[in-house]
């Protein structure tokens, strides 16, 4: 059994079912992200694990112990909130030591642990400051230290980076991951930012309409989405409609080329998708699908150039690396786009 086992969790507010038959097993030390748009139920799942909401149905077990019915202060779960939630009347050191004081940890031990935590978050000299004297990023680091100080069995992060500016967000997410790895603490991270989830998670749960649409590693989620929602929500997608030539063999036609998909297909056409980076400008080696196209937009992004082309009546986005010896094509230029059929994602 997984260390944190959520099974058949349901939550309704009145007639509105916000979480539907949600099950998930999380191993000890794993970093899981709940990713989804607003209102998909990800925060509600987190709040049920924390004990702030009671499930309508289902079970939550941590280390084999049933948590449903236990009050939040009896669960030994650390939580970091989007709004920092530092106690304004307490100094940084008092904030970090709050949970230890509640636990009745002796003063000397408490002070040592607070110092250890402040060193861990890289703010060893700010113990005497008040929250209002810190920047947003520093406040969230302190909130993390406060949550970790009582050595919780699970750490919950509720969109902890949403209130920060882009640069701090990137550096802090890397710090959070490094600290999580160092301590080996089981962590659930709620976010609506796919880049955040992809960059720091062991596994991602993509949620949609209260259910877990797909659970997998960032690589699996990005490259092998199993539902149309996941394919659309995570990363950018180009969608093609291919005509079925031989359904039993999985032979399809796209543009001027025929190619095979793994396994048979049904119907007269199949919706396929490809990531921008899977499509090459010109004929690339190993590509078995070729599409004639006209360049409509060129966006120079530095190391990457994003092109938008029109191919067979649909807009196709593709990324190419910038090479100083090879300028990007001009607007209106007729080009060929190519891709490997193995990179095509079949949309359900």
């Amino acid at each position, binding site marked *: 059994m997984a260390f944190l086992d959520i099974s058949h969790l349901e939550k309704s507010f009145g007639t509105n079912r916000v979480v539907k038959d949600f099950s998930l097993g999380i191993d000890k030390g794993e970093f899981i992200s709940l990713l989804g748009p607003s209102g998909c139920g990800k925060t509600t799942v987190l709040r049920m694990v*924390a004990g702030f909401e009671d499930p309508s149905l289902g079970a939550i077990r941590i280390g084999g112990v049933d948590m449903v019915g236990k009050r939040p*202060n009896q669960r030994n779960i*650390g*939580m970091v909130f989007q709004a920092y*939630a530092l*106690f*304004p009347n307490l100094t940084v050191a008092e904030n970090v030591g709050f949970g230890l004081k509640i*636990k009745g940890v002796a003063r000397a031990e408490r002070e040592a642990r607070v110092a250890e935590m402040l060193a861990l978050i890289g703010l060893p000299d700010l113990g005497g400051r008040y929250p209002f004297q810190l920047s947003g990023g520093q406040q969230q680091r302190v909130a993390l230290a406060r*949550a970790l100080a009582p050595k919780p069995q699970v750490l919950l992060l509720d969109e902890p980076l949403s209130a920060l500016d882009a640069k701090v967000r990137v550096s802090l997410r890397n710090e959070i991951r490094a600290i999580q790895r160092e301590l080996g603490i089981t962590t659930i991270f709620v976010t609506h930012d796919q880049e955040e989830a992809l960059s720091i998670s062991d596994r991602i749960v993509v949620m949609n309409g209260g259910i877990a649409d797909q659970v997998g590693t960032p690589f699996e989620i990005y490259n092998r989405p199993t539902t149309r929602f996941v394919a659309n929500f995570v990363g950018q997608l180009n969608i093609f409609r291919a005509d079925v030539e031989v359904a039993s063999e999985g032979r399809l036609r796209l543009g001027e080329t025929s190619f095979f998909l793994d396994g048979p297909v049904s119907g007269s056409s199949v919706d396929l998708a490809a990531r921008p980076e899977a499509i090459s400008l010109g004929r690339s080696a190993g590509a078995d699908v070729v599409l004639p196209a006209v360049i409509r937009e060129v966006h120079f992004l530095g190391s990457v150039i994003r092109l938008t082309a029109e191919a067979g009546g649909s807009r196709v986005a593709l990324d190419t690396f910038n090479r100083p010896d090879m300028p990007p094509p001009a607007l209106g230029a007729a080009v060929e786009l190519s891709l490997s059929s193995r990179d095509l994602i079949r949309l359900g």
Partner: protein
Amino acid sequence: MSLFARITGWVVLIFGLLYFFIPLAGLTEFSLKARRGVYSLDAYAKVINDPEFQATFSFSVMMALATIAIGVLLVVPTAFWVRLKMPWARPYVEFVTLLPLVIPAIVIVFGYIRLYNTSSFLPLTGSVFGTNLLLAFGYTTLALPYMYRAVDTGLRTIDVGTLTEAAQSLGAGWVTILGRVILPNVIPAVLSGAFLTFAIVIGEFTLAALLDRPAFGPYLQRIGANKPYEPFALSVIAFGITWACMGLIQLVTRFSKHTKARG
């Protein structure tokens, strides 16, 4: 702003100030005329040296402190709970807390006497302690509109829900959350409510007189009926106490500024 509007503003302001200060100046001036022909503080000296003044003032101060304590214990958890768990109940609670403004104190005190007289199931008026307790409860009721609003406004300035959840996730129970997280963060608001309560209790007449307690309000009335200058000196003292309370409210409100977080 046009010249006319500016002049009108000043005229209105000066009229308002004169309307307020002229009677007060007259009152103060008259309180200083106890000695024929010269201004003196004789009336003040007499009042302050009067053992009854000291006794009644001390009694009212003690009652004010008791009222503040009861008010804080009653209002802070109520306002906290309404804000956290029962936001739908807020209009009803606000309505109840406003009732003392429309129900005269005399109605409240007759209700008390009827309910808690010596032949009732809870004969509080049968003992000094019981009557004092009743008086403190009555004062708490009278101060409820001010105390509740002050605390509720204080709670509005902090994220009650998230702070509570943060404390809960760190293992805190309700008493710890209220005592160590919520209360310290609304102290300026609680103090504002406390000073208003103090000002109300010090000058209150009806409850104290009808419950026959030796409070400052009835003493003021007695002196006013029998002495020429002392009542005016007492009025000036009472004004001074009220203004001191208002000044302290301003002072403690400034403390709250340090709690504002920056992004």
